[in-house]
């Protein structure tokens, strides 16, 4: 360990000069506030799982489970009656189902961005939110998957999407972006699940070691796989974590790129543009951070996690929302510019029609929510107002749903033949099926909160507590607080 020269080695006048010219010592920003000990972190986060089930949890789970039944009944009705129960009619054959699919899959992207890209960029604040955001990713992809699965019409043939031998001895068309989507989304789900579980193994070990009830010992014991915190384990674990972060980075960028190919590889004006992949990825991350904020802000107050998810964390997430929201705004502007500059009259019509045609209201809701509302995050006062941040995050969620609606429906409803133009409206089945996915998402999320550690405990200890630094123990900030010092 490198020690600075002690004052005894320095002549007196030089010492005086040093005292005079001494730079102001700026303390490092504390990632976990109030000087917490390791034990406090374990108690706080395991306590959420180990406490007696709160009443609100039963209520919320009951309600969300009931709402999830809407999706179930919507789908049962759809399959038993036929796809006509959805509002799809020529020329709009991609309605709410595809809008909802892109909406939900986009939400997932923030989780992977936090767990993968921010890990590679060594953003330490991610440790407070990554576990919850990854859970959000997985449950959002579950909700997303329902829509294209049932959109195929005869859902019992959905396995034909996979390269499995069937009685017709016909294989999938690998030239089709829809087939690429099958691979992208299923890979995305699987890799997110592996990453999430692997990251959780040490924390499950902690829950196992703390368990008092027999069922807990077995439940967490089996899930923890016999993890014993050995350095030889950590060595491989950290390497695996890094490699999975490295693999998830191109994955998360590719998934929404391929989703955008579903549109961009067609020849429809308004869809057939090269800006789609980056624009979709930015939009996905934008919507995902909207959802992370929507979820984390209430959780932070419910579980009193203000020391772990600090104002700084919210600030960082607001800034990412602002950055990606501005990218989305830029993409909207650039689409219009190219529609004019490209001098293609069909393209130009598609865009004028978007803003001033029969779906003008959807377009302007989108602009208000996605372009204008995140710009408020430039102001420190707004980022510091948690309630306002939460409200803006809701606007982001709404706006991003409308973005997908505008893209999907406006281009289809006014296609090449004016004689076939129509006005698409969803049916009640569409609406209930969609609302039900929020119930499903919330239901799964509440189960996660109840049974699994919602914050990466080992990562918080290693990266957010200054006393975890083994190299600079003489630094005053690295003192090791003991459990008794916690309030």
């Amino acid at each position, binding site marked *: 360990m490198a020690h600075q020269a002690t004052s005894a080695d320095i002549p007196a006048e030089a010492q005086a000069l040093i005292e005079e010219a001494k730079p102001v010592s700026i303390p490092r920003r504390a990632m976990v506030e109030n000087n917490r000990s390791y*034990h406090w972190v374990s108690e706080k986060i395991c306590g959420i799982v180990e406490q007696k089930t709160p009443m609100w949890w039963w209520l919320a789970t009951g309600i969300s489970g009931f709402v999830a039944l809407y999706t179930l009944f919507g789908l049962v009705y759809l399959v038993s009656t036929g796809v006509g129960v959805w509002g799809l009619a020529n020329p709009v054959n991609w309605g709410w189902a595809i809008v909802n699919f892109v909406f939900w899959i986009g939400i997932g992207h923030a989780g992977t961005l936090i767990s993968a890209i921010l890990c590679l960029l060594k953003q330490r604040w991610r440790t407070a939110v990554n576990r919850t955001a990854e859970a959000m990713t997985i449950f959002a992809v579950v909700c997303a998957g329902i829509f294209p699965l049932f959109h195929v019409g005869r859902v019992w043939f959905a396995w034909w999407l996979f390269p499995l031998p069937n009685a017709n001895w016909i294989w999938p068309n690998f030239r089709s972006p829809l087939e690429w989507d099958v691979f992208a989304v299923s890979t995305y789900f699987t890799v997110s699940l592996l990453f999430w579980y*692997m990251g959780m193994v040490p924390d499950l070990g902690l829950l196992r070691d703390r368990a008092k009830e027999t069922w807990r010992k077995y439940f967490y*014991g089996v899930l923890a*796989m016999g993890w*014993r*915190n050995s350095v030889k384990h950590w060595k*491989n674990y950290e390497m*695996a974590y890094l490699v999975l972060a490295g693999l998830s980075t191109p994955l998360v960028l590719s998934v929404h790129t391929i989703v955008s190919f579903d549109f961009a590889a067609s020849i429809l004006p308004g869809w057939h543009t090269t800006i789609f992949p980056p624009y979709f990825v930015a939009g996905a991350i934008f919507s995902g951070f909207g959802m992370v904020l929507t979820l984390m802000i209430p959780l932070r107050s419910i579980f009193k996690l203000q020391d772990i998810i600090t104002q700084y964390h919210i600030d960082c997430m607001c800034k990412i929302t602002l950055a990606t929201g501005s990218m989305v705004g830029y993409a909207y502007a650039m689409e219009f510019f190219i529609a004019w500059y490209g001098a293609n009259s069909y393209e130009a019509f598609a865009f004028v029609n978007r803003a001033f045609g029969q779906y003008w209201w959807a377009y302007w809701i989108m602009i208000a929510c996605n372009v204008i509302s995140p710009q408020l995050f430039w102001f420190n006062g707004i980022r510091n107002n948690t309630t306002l941040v939460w409200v803006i995050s809701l606007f982001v969620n709404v706006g991003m749903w409308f973005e997908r609606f505008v893209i999907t429906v406006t281009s289809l409803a006014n296609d090449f033949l004016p004689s076939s133009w129509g006005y698409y409206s969803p049916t009640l089945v569409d609406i209930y099926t969609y609302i039900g996915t929020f119930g499903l998402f919330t239901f799964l999320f509440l189960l996660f909160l109840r049974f699994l550690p919602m914050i990466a405990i080992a990562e918080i200890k290693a990266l957010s507590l200054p006393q975890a630094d083994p190299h600079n123990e003489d630094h005053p900030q690295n003192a090791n607080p003991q459990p008794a010092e916690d309030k």
Partner: protein
Amino acid sequence: MSNESYGLIATFDTSPAIYKAAKKVNEAGYTKFDIYTPFPVHGIEYAMGEKRSFLGGFSLIGGISGFAIGMAIVAFMNFDYPLIIGGKPIFGPIFPFPIFYELTILCAAFGTFFGMFIMNNLPRHNHPVFEYKDFGKSSDDKFMIVIETSDPEFDEGKTKTFLEEIGGTEVTLIDAPEKD
């Protein structure tokens, strides 16, 4: 030295203390020892003389096989049932590239995930260190070193003194689990 024992365990309170102790145990010539920490302590694996993890090898093997499987699937299926679209070739490496890309990532992730458990010999639910009554604290806020009795340098008295000298507390002999 007792043959029924697994090793000596010593507890440390802070991350810098365990880091220094790891270095000293390694310098003292012990080879069969392990350290248990509630979180990955930065650089401690090198301080205790461990080599860089080989895990990347599993990822590489997974990635290469994913790419090859993707290519094989598409090539076989397109030759088996050619879909003639727009006069394009029956097989080419470009048009189905997303398939290879996703399968590369998928199989590399599987390689990494299972590689982590294989390299760590997990799942393994019984281990002698679990016999130590306070072992659970190593996942909360304590740091522990175990020097195994099978280490050639091991001597119950000397090793115990050594562990106490380097700052370990509660130095305890762990009994090997009873065999049936």
